[in-house]
């Protein structure tokens, strides 16, 4: 009769319950090993580079950690940025802007390729660097040739070019600034300004 086996099942369940209950008093021995671990330290083999925060003028020192060790086949990519503890001003601290720099470096909306918009168009189109620089040089030269003022009305030599202007970047380096100055001013450009004005 299968009845016995059914009963056996029920009895077994009850016994099992008793055993498990007993287990709760320490007879179980079902403990897992104490295997909890901390997250691995993510910077252990990254490359550390000293840099300066590009935002405000406090000039907080940065330690920029990047993937890759500058070996031939590894493409360096920043994966973490924190304050440089040696820096006399920020001493390792960063404000919310500096602490979020990683997302500026890897922003979705970073410019990726030279883009060009035709007159009247409603979109930017990808172009090559050569094409873009050729075209810009052409436009600038044409404008300069046409509108450069060598002499003022009273005959004074003024050598100025007023129809093309430029705004310079407050976060670019002094070296960039110097090259920019040399290039723009020597062409006679006067409408040359920067954020200090604002």
């Amino acid at each position, binding site marked *: 009769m299968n009845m016995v086996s059914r009963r056996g099942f029920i009895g077994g369940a009850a016994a099992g319950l008793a055993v498990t209950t007993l287990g709760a008093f320490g007879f179980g021995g079902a403990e897992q090993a104490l295997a909890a671990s901390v997250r691995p330290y993510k910077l252990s083999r990254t490359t550390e580079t000293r*840099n*300066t925060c590009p*935002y*405000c*003028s406090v*000039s907080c020192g*940065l330690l*920029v950690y*990047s993937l890759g060790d500058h070996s031939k086949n590894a*493409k360096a*990519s*920043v994966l973490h940025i924190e304050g440089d503890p040696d820096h006399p*001003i*920020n001493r390792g601290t960063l*404000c919310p802007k500096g602490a979020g720099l*990683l997302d500026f*470096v890897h*922003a979705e*909306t970073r*410019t*990726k390729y*030279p*883009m*060009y918009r035709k*007159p*009247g*168009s409603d979109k*930017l189109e990808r172009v090559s660097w050569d094409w873009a620089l050729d075209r*810009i*040089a*052409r*436009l*600038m*030269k044409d404008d300069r040739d046409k509108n450069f003022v*060598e002499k003022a009305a009273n005959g*004074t*030599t*003024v*050598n*100025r070019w007023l*129809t*093309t*202007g*430029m705004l*310079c*970047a*407050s*976060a670019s380096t*002094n*070296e*960039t600034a*110097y*090259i*920019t100055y040399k290039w723009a001013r020597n*062409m*006679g450009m*006067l*409408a040359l300004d920067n*954020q200090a004005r*604002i």
Partner: protein
Amino acid sequence: MTNTWMDLKNADLLIVMGGNPAEAHPCGFKWVIEAKVHRGAKLVVIDPRFTRTASVADFYCPIRQGTDIAFLSGVIKYLLDNDKIQHEYVKNFTNASLLVKENFGFEDGLFTGYDETKRDYDKASWSYQVGDDGYAKVDETLADPRCVINVLREHVKQYTPEFVERITGSPRAKFLKVCEMMAECSSPDKVMNSLYALGWTQHSSGSQNIRTMCIVQMLLGNMGVRGGGMNALRGHSNIQGLTDIGLLSNSMPGYLSLPVEAEATFDQYMSQRQFKPLRPNQMSYWQNYPKFYASLQKGMFGKAATPENNFAYDWLPKLDATYDILKAFELMQDGKMNGYICQGFNPLMSIPDKNKVRASLAKLKFLVTMDPLETETSRFWEDHGEFNPIDPSKVMTEVFQLPVTCFAEDEGSLANSARWLQWHWPAQDPPWESRTDIAIMSGIRSRMLALYEKEGGTFFDPIVNTYWPYLDPNEPTPDEVAREVNGYTLAPIKDPADPTKTIPAGKQLDGFGQLQADGSTLCGCWIYSGQYTEQGNAMARRITADPDSAGIAPNWAFAWPANRRILYNRASADTNGKPWDPERTLIKWNGAKWVGYDVPDYGLTVAPDKGMGPFILTEEGQARLWCRELMRDGPMPTHYEPFESPVVNIAFPKVRGNPAGRVFKDDWLRFGDAKDFPYAGTTYRLTEHFHYWTKHAKINAILQPEFFVEIGEELAKEKGVAKGDWVRVWSKRGSVKAVAVVTKRIKPLICDGKPVHVVGVPIHWGFIGETIMGHGANTLTPFVGDANTNTPEFKAFLVNLERTTAPAVA
């Protein structure tokens, strides 16, 4: 900044007025907290809003925006009336005793010489009485009513506490409490520090705001000392550097100035740049101008710049007007500007009157943007609904959006607010197809050069003769450029430090002391000389030692000028060369020379009894309580209301705005008045964001996601606005919609008996990036500039406000 960031910790009283460093410069602000924690210093905040800085202040005093000069003039009056000035300092280190011309005067809000049609002054009367010896006359007893200090006393006499309260809305008791706290710092062992930023500069009287506090600091004897000074907290990482390098419409590197059209010849140009001392025995360091000029022009044109052609003087463009940003957009609007290059700048969001800016850009033939991020400017032609309404098919501008490396990928130096030049190194490869700015500029240059060589063209001598000695002309390395900026010898020169020695040609200069006027030295920016010597790149130094914890760290990077960390540091010692406060020693006279923790801002071996003033750049050798003809809108500060003000100027009811403030003709029509726009608007940064950059960074977008305006509970109640409601804010120039942050931190100011409600408009949102789309704050702001710098008046304008519904998502 005259001092360093760390030096803030040496102050006893820190006045934050015209700034919000906790919010805009948190890591520099730590030194304010250090002063509080370790020195027991007090922090006072004077601001229309209870800011994050105010949240840790010991004392907060509200003030209506645009009335700082009235407030501080009241302070000056209080100090003079109560004799709370540092007498020895004022007498010896400032021009207090110099006599002002008899025909100089001030009446009804105007100084002598005003021409209303030009909105400018004839400044002939704005100078000293000059004796037969060619020097300015003095009255050491300070009794003569024409003594500068007496002229000043007369000028501020109307700013009684009652009058100050009527103008500024600062309660009298709070104003007086601030006066008392400041007055304590007139003692030589107590030092006050002024921290300011765009809260002072972005006004039509911005420069004079700063002047007023300078006067206070001079009266208290706090310039040139540890913990003191005037500390302009600059906004951007290298705004100092760009200004130093001369990227301003009227500048050349090292604060040399471009010739104006009237200076047709080199002699005329130099005659305006003599810097002859106005008192005996003064250094007047600008007398070396010809050396700076010649060395710079060698850097610009190399061999083509010769003594014979006055170092290519004629090739310099000459100014017939100021071509600042506002002017550039005015030209654009008038169709007089064809091409514009934005090298990492976002004018559509940063320049006042956004609607005017957009319309102006649309008149360009071509626009080039070079930026690591997609900017609103590079997409100004794109229709984004109410956030950027435009019809692209009507915009004929060719637009180039060029991808540029960011800080993480480039190398070079940045100048911080304290004038430190710090080198940085790239941490990753340029992503995608981005290139460095230098490569792009050089690339365009090479192409234009080739075109000129092939086709010829208009006057291209300066282009083909540009000094371009770089190994790869298409991408000069930052190292090469930094060496050139520092300067080197082109021919053997005598060593000024030791005339028995000769420095051979081709050597890096040790500093600007070695510059020559004859073309034997080349130096791209004289104030930077010393940054890259024969010893190597000083900007890359990383030595942390800071003797006496003075907050100087002399061997960390390089500070211009001459690695000097605290400007005017000679003034930290008395007339005998003994520090005013031994606890705060910077430099002292040891009997033979000046020694101390910083590089002396003085002749190293000039004894204190020689009568040389501590302010070696000025012709007086002294600091100027009254600044002659050097400011366009007056030698002393005067309270003028902002161009858009909720009240009339009760001091000078006939004057609207700063009489010399910059306004273009059509922009007068775009001013509103208090009848239609009753609330006092102001714009500002928030700590979570940096201008229009961080809205591209997810982390920062999370921290402050959406455009809002801040209003007080009283105004909110009046308008039926609850926290989180949408409101429409509009000025004569445009309208924005924003979420309302209703706060106790903004309270109505009672000005001349009537309440003025402040509406705060933070600036950080646009139509590109990770944040929620928002209207720009610059939709509201007026196109008006400071009289001296042409900086737009972003901090004070008029708006109206009402409850509304959320904007349609574009």
